[in-house]
Every structure is written in structure tokens, then in C-alpha cells.
């Protein structure tokens, strides 16, 4: 008799998002599609962080007019806020580098801008 394998849905959704973004990063050549894959990887990691701290039947960890019940864990939510801001900053930097590469070489293919020539 097989025992119950815990395969809860939010963790599985986060693993699926990370898996799809791995497929995009390995197999696609367009630079804009690579950046979209990295953004999807960030979204999957943020979802995983927030869903680690859930308590069944819990409410938001704020004391202003809160209903009865236990409170959800509060430290993963603070770490997710920091992670979102860092991802926005890194994505902006990557997009300006893609703009510069396009002005310099004239194409958005990652195979054509590999050699270090002037």
C-alpha cells in the first residue's frame, strides 16, 4: 500500500514556472525571449517564497482591525519584497544592455554577437 505522497499545488506551480523558464533559457536564441525567461524565473521563486509561510486559516500579519485567528508567518513576506525590488533593478539594467547591443551590431540574435570585435 503506497503511502500518501505530498504534492501540494502551490509548490508544484512554482516548480513548473522554474522548469518552463529553464526550457526558454536553454533553447531560445532571441535576446528578448531570454530576458522574458529570466523574469519568469524570478516570478516562480517569489511565489515559492511566499507560499512557504502560509498557515491554514490565517490572516494578514497586521494588527489594525484584524479578525480572529492565527497569523501568517511574516518574515518570508519581507524577504519577497526585497527580492521583487532587486529583480526590477536587474531587469532594467539587462534591457539597456540589449538596447546598446542592438545599436552596435544591428540584430537581436545571440549567436551573432559572440566574438569580441570592435
Amino acid at each position, binding site marked *: 500500500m503506497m503511502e500518501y505522497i505530498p504534492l501540494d*499545488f502551490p*509548490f508544484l506551480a512554482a516548480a513548473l514556472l522554474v522548469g518552463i523558464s529553464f*526550457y526558454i533559457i536553454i*533553447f531560445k536564441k532571441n535576446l528578448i525571449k531570454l530576458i522574458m525567461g529570466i523574469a519568469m524565473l524570478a516570478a516562480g521563486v517569489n511565489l515559492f517564497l511566499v507560499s512557504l509561510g502560509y498557515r491554514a486559516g490565517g490572516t494578514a500579519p497586521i494588527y489594525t482591525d484584524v479578525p480572529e485567528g492565527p497569523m501568517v*508567518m*511574516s*518574515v518570508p513576506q*519581507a524577504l519577497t519584497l526585497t527580492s521583487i525590488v532587486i529583480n526590477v*533593478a536587474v531587469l532594467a539594467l539587462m534591457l*539597456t544592455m540589449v538596447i546598446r547591443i542592438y545599436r552596435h551590431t544591428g540584430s537581436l540574435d545571440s549567436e551573432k554577437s559572440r566574438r569580441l570585435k570592435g
Partner: protein
Amino acid sequence: MRRVTGWIVLIVLVAFLVWGVTLIHPFGYPDASDMDDYIIENSQEETGSNNVVAAVLFDYRALDTLGEATILFTAVMGVLLLLRASKRKKETS
């Protein structure tokens, strides 16, 4: 050759991720929550704010917020540096 290697790496990574999901605690019942219980109990009298997440971000873990503000500043400086007009080299006779 490159495509075969890519597919093998992708299948190994996704299998490892899905196997790792089965080892986490069931969704909704975390087990190691001593630090969060202390923070939720004592944050109103130690910091004086009703918002526990803001107290964690700016009082209990303020060094992480300092690092994040530094990263934001560095990224803004990097973007404004990459979009400057380049100086044309003047021809000297």
C-alpha cells in the same frame, strides 16, 4: 549534439525540482516557526508599530533593506551611464 545535451540537462533538472517538492512540509502547517512566533508576539511593544511586516523590514532586519537600497542606487547609476552620448573623436591635423 547540442540539442541532445540540452534535453538531457532539462529533464534531469525538472525531475530534481519535482522530487524536491515532495520533501517540504505540507502546505499550511509549517513546523520551524519559533522566530516568527516571537516576532508576532513582541513587535508591538518593542517597535511600536501595528504593521509586523514593516517592523521586520525596518527594525529587525534593517541591514537587508540597506543592501537593497544600495542595489537600487547602483542599478540606476548603471542605466544612466550606459545611455550617455559618446564623445566623437576629434580629428587633429
